[in-house]
């Protein structure tokens, strides 16, 4: 049916958390446009028609398509699949990294693709406080009944308090609509659906670059998006003027997607002063801030500090949206725990918004999974557990900071060119942009067995103290000797 050739799609999505089998796809994979690009105008079948005309390999997509439209005899009907025209989805750029890493037999290999915390021994880590919470839950023998559509009430209360601060007047005023969501992704998706439904035509502005799945989410939710400048390759830092200019230039009433802390994939966060200016221009243009908070506590080590951008915007009286995830900071990756919060100007609006968030969730998954939410509620709700959690989070963030420092020390000591490597220290969080280009990143892998994504992004969570020197050597070599 298909000529399956070796072909790997490169796209600059940095999808750090997904795993699909590594697949080889035919050249016809370019037809699978609906899955990777906004294709609002053309249907999938229209695109098939387009593509068939321009290609020489004449596997008859059209005739197959006609077949599946139902003009069929009885004998053929049963054996013909409707899925004949379905092509392989593009492979995930991150899993490709992990797969290649697995296949590499070198002892020197290092996996810096994984967006999940690793200990110094490079093992996955289940927080002690999580194990305690789970044991408690096991002892209690709680039931497994459906949660309400909006999720576990104790969790919703805890998560809003964690984000905004337990004493924040907006909570007393009941101005925040919160529902439990399927980690960050699911929360973003529900919010995107809300935007599509109530702000038809409104655009979401996303940073360039951003977490790859952001674009998929808004595409599938049929919300148009455009990019604002963010990363400046010259400084390996923030293109602040570009960012402000682009936000200013966007049509009034756009949604601005902001990373609350520990920007993914760059690790570059605005300073407090810059955040204030960003808030200024957003207010000027009547935009709505939409925060993605996936690393609260993980960036600086302090839950409160990492929420300061969100809290500052809230304190200005702005309405805003915030998606939260507990994948990293509580290590609950696979439990899919998060929340979407909509801060409204009145309690009445919050009630209405919450009801509509529920209406979106119901035909998506009915109600969210209970296990992870209970863990969070137990950890946050128990003062001893909560303190333990804060300690463990400081430890995890601390390990990341210390390997950053060690990497920087090695880079400065070993690189005699005088290049300024201090951006390594200025960046924050698990993820960092090295400033390496594709060819240089390839060199990292091919010559040094360091696995990372082609956009120069590394996950410091996968770096051990013992490997810092080796990594520094690899980076210096790739930067200077490869162009």
């Amino acid at each position, binding site marked *: 049916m298909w000529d399956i050739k070796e072909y790997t799609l490169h796209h600059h999505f940095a999808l750090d958390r997904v795993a699909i089998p590594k697949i080889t796809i035919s050249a016809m994979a370019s037809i699978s446009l609906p899955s990777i690009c906004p294709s609002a105008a053309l249907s999938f079948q229209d695109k098939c028609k387009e593509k068939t005309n321009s290609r020489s390999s004449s596997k008859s997509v059209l005739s197959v398509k006609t077949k599946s439209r139902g003009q069929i005899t009885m004998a053929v009907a049963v*054996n013909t699949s409707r899925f004949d025209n379905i092509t392989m989805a593009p492979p995930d750029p991150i899993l490709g990294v992990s797969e290649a890493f697995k296949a590499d037999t070198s002892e020197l290999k290092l996996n810096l693709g994984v967006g999940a915390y690793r200990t110094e021994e490079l093992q996955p880590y289940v927080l002690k406080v999580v194990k305690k919470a789970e044991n408690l839950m096991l002892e209690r023998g709680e039931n497994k009944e459906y949660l309400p559509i909006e999720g576990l009430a104790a969790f919703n209360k805890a998560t809003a308090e964690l984000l905004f601060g337990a004493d924040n007047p907006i909570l007393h005023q009941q101005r925040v609509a919160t529902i439990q969501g399927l980690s960050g992704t699911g929360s973003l998706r529900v919010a995107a659906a809300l935007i599509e439904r109530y702000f038809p035509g409104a655009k979401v502005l996303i940073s360039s670059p951003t977490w790859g799945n952001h674009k998929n989410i808004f595409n599938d939710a049929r919300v148009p998006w455009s990019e604002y400048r963010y990363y400046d390759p010259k400084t390996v830092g923030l293109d602040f003027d570009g960012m402000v200019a682009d936000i200013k230039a966007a049509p009034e009433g756009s949604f601005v997607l902001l990373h609350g802390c520990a920007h993914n994939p760059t690790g570059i966060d605005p300073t407090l002063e810059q955040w204030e200016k960003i808030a200024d221009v957003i207010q000027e243009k009547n935009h709505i801030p939409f925060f993605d908070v996936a690393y609260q506590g993980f960036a600086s080590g302090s839950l409160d500090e990492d929420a300061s951008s969100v809290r500052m915007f809230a304190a200005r009286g702005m309405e805003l949206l915030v998606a939260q995830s507990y994948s990293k900071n509580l290590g609950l990756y696979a439990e899919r725990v998060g929340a979407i919060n909509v801060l409204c100007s009145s309690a009445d609006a919050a009630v209405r918004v919450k009801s509509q968030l529920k209406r979106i969730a119901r035909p998506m998954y009915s109600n969210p999974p209970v296990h992870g939410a209970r863990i969070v509620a137990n950890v946050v709700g128990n003062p001893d557990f909560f303190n333990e959690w804060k300690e463990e989070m400081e430890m995890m963030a601390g390990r990341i900071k210390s390997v950053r420092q060690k990497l920087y020390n090695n880079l400065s000591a070993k690189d005699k060119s005088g290049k300024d490597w201090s951006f390594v220290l200025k960046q924050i969080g698990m993820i960092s942009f090295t400033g390496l280009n594709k060819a240089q990143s390839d060199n990292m892998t091919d010559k040094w067995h360091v696995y990372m994504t082609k956009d120069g992004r590394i996950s410091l969570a996968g770096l051990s103290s013992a490997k810092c020197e080796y990594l520094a050597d690899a980076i210096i070599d790739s930067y200077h000797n490869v162009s």
Partner: protein
Amino acid sequence: MAIRTAITRRITSSSSSSILFNSRSMSSWWGNVQPAPKDPILGVTEAFLADPSPDKVNVGVGAYRDDNGKPVVLDCVREAERRVAGNLNMEYLPMGGSNKMVEETLKLAYGEDSDLIKDKRIAAIQALSGTGACRIFADFQKRFSPDSQIYIPAPTWSNHHNIWRDANVPQRTFHYYHPESKGLDFASLMDDVKNAPNGSFFLLHACAHNPTGVDPTVEQWKEISYQFKVKGHFAFFDMAYQGFASGDPERDAKSIRIFLEDGHLIGCSQSYAKNMGLYGQRVGCLSLVCEDEKQAVAVKSQLQQLARPMYSNPPVHGALIVSTILGDPDLKQLWLKEVKGMADRIIGMRTSLRENIEKLGSPLSWEHITNQIGMFCYSGMTPEQVDRLTKEFHIYMTRNGRISMAGVTSGNVEYLAKAIHEVTKAA
């Protein structure tokens, strides 16, 4: 707009956090957001919980209760939980979920020795219970058969309508329930199947139809399958109650097996909410039968593409429980025993409810209570009668007259019978 600009300017000029903020003075972005109507099913439980009456009975949502009216966690589940607690890390599952869980789940639907499984012709992913499986399928249908519509039985689980609507797939209904007999309107069903354009997509309940409890007989399923062949229709089975209907999972999958024997390339949604009592864990599976392994790989990759921007990857806890149970012969046996126990209790309550109403001298026929199968009984009561049940007797159920038999106990069956008799005797 002018007001908003003026206000925000005022806020901008005093942008320190010490603004005295009067929430009334600022207009909201969300002014045009109306309160959503309460979900007809889940709203019932909300109302029940708010009722202070000691006599209240909840026969609304389809969640199993034991004879004391308490939620149940199966022994096999408790044991599986013990085994998985704290052992494994919580690393992300692949987008398609737990392979182990999916493998075991396919065996349940397609048969232990299914050739389709051996030949790897089934594209399958772990899904967010039945809802999530249906939704991913609906989105898949929209993406790859954008001109198609879905035929949904009348009536059906109300969320089916929401799912295909939010997926932007136009929907039509086909005849299913026959109010006069409180059974299947088979003739009209077959007419609708015949009259639908060739190659239409149909949603079928594999067993224990929700909300009516009315299932086609084996012979009727065979006829439906044959007619589907003639018309080249696509059958999507929603199987949320395997094991729960008759007590025997193999028997409950009969409709699917008939279609498979006839060579249909079906789709299937499976849920562990009821039959393993994993409601809140959100564990299920979506599967699509393909022509060959290559196609199955391609289709699976596209299913994953739909899942990724919705939730990235599915929750692990419930999947671990399922694969622990189904992967251990002893635990699996225990599960089968417990499922049968649940189904038997429900069948017993059906008999009891019918007998109790008949004992009160009701002029109406109540044989449909025992004819129907699964968790639900379509009582035939009108919305007005249901309202009376709620207002006068504190009995909570959905307004379509659907009774969740799982909520009926030896402790409340007489009270329920009396109430039903009261509101229907004049009818």
